[in-house]
């Protein structure tokens, strides 16, 4: 192979990188490629956040904001697996949160089963719901806006079911969880800081899962089928099976977050965990931060959750104005930054490997 055909037309922007230097690899060296100058400060930041509950005299309100950041980051990251990697934009993810929250809570309230066991039960049930909804969608090629509409409908069905089946779910009045004091086995902690570490651990696990998925062959196949389904099929990829697996995984993670919500607030109702508002918020976290990256939703949540909390308190005299401002900021971001914040880094071969674009 002497004269490569592409020499006829090199793209003007490409720096001359000697190809022999770097080994070709699907996975690259991953995070280690970021180098100590990125990883060092990142670990410091993580340690600083982990030390927040230890600050003397810190108001729990601030810890609660950080807890919500982690909680939304978990949900947005779970959404990114099917929505970002797989390109199937679900606007009904609250359904899976609701299934998780209600499963563990009802098992606890009605059958005295520990929420630690109710959590995997809820995850399994949410994955099952995902498969039941996803199979016909993916089998018959429902994608794009149509898939989004199906998931909106799913969200409404979940909401109405939780409202309507009052003999099981207590309907619109919601389910309070009996306060058990300090009962670690019942997923309740008298020291509220423990919730902080529980949700932080959940976040770490979920980000690690999303990172592993992104770098796996499965993850690359998801990205490939999102980019071009026909080419993916042509390459021998079973498109609907891959989408189904991604949706089930995503749903299971969202359900785990649902159980955490129930245990943290000790009260759930259909509006809070099955509502369209929650579904939309989940999408926004991921899209704002950059839904291709395993870190995108975390960046999105770290910005949006404090912003919305601040707007709510700051503008409490004018009901709804906070939502208007929130919406306007988002519209502007989407117009001028369609790939999200981390998407700004995607043109750099180095950074795209670090953020897992």
């Amino acid at each position, binding site marked *: *192979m002497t*004269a*490569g*055909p*592409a*020499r*006829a*037309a090199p*793209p003007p*922007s*490409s720096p*001359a*990188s*000697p*190809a022999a230097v*770097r*080994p*070709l*690899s*699907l*996975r690259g060296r991953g995070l280690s490629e970021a180098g100590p100058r990125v990883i060092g400060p990142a670990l410091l930041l993580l340690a600083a956040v982990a030390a927040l509950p230890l600050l003397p005299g810190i108001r729990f309100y601030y810890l609660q904001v950080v807890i919500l950041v982690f909680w939304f980051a978990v949900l947005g990251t779970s959404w990114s697996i099917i929505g970002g990697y797989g390109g199937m934009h679900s606007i009904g993810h609250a359904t899976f949160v609701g299934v998780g929250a209600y499963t563990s809570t009802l098992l606890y309230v009605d059958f005295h089963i520990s929420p630690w066991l109710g959590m995997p039960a809820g995850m399994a049930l949410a994955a099952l719901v995902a498969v039941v909804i996803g199979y016909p969608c993916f089998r018959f090629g429902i994608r794009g806006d149509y898939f989004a509409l199906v998931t909106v409908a799913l969200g409404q069905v979940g909401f109405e079911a939780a409202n309507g089946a009052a003999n099981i779910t207590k309907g619109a009045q919601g389910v309070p969880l009996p306060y058990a004091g300090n009962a670690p086995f019942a997923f309740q902690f008298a020291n509220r800081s423990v919730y902080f570490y529980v949700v932080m651990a959940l976040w770490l696990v979920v980000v690690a899962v999303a990172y592993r998925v992104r770098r796996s*062959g499965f993850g*690359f*196949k998801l*990205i*490939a089928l*999102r*980019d*071009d389904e*026909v*080419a*993916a*099929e*042509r*390459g*021998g*990829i*079973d*498109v609907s099976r891959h989408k189904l697996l991604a949706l089930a995984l995503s749903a299971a993670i969202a359900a785990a977050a649902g159980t955490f919500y129930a245990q943290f607030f000790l009260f759930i109702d259909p509006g809070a965990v099955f509502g369209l508002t929650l579904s939309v918020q989940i999408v926004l976290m991921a899209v704002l931060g950059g839904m*291709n990256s395993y870190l995108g939703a975390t960046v999105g949540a770290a910005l949006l959750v404090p912003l919305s909390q601040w707007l709510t308190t700051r503008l409490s005299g004018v009901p709804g104005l906070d939502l208007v401002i929130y919406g306007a900021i988002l519209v502007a971001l989407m117009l001028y930054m369609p790939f999200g914040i981390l998407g700004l880094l*995607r*043109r750099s*071969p180095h950074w*795209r490997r670090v953020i897992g*674009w």
Partner: protein
Amino acid sequence: MTEPVADPILAVRGVAKSFGGLRALQDVHLEVARGSITGLIGPNGSGKSTLFDIITGYQSPDAGEVVFDGASLRALAPHQVSRQGLVRTFQLTRIFPTLTVAENLLVFADGAEGEGRARELLEFVGLLRLADHEAAGLSYGQQKLLEIAQVLMLQPRLLLLDEPLAGINPGLAEELLQRLRELRDSGMTLLLVEHDLPAVTRLCDRLTVLDGGQIMLSGTPEAVLADAGVKEVFLGG
């Protein structure tokens, strides 16, 4: 008019396809000799792309069947057809734009063996030095070469190429023709649709002419181009 092919790798038997009232293909019989480069030619709308779609499972025929290496492809989904070793390119290039050039290949085979093959193929099409770049940034011709490298990654036994030369500059086209001959010489069978008749004549071992959804004739390029009926179809009589 059509002589039988010894040891065909692909046999299309009595395939018919209609879209509403339009009969795109009628009773099409086609055999592709193992280890050959076979050209499928015919005017626009003669049914070439429909035939490609049916062979590769993207559309199902109303009648007839496709037999690949002795086994019927009936009811196989496109990804299953590909896994049999029958792989195609598309008239409109299809790659994964947000993956890098290297990832476009590696997605189909990772591990040391896949990396070695990807490197060879990128060298083969001259894209190795762009391996780390997003595929969306390639020129049209480069994307086309990337698609060819990508399908070769799948190690097909039969490769279907839908207008491989369209939109490629002449120098590059000559290079590509040479690459296709090398593939044939390495034992791969190629079936291609192409409008560039001089190129097709030089490249192909056999030609098949499709007109109005029917096979008009098959034979060596010399025999086919000498046929009065074919001249009429292509030169308007």
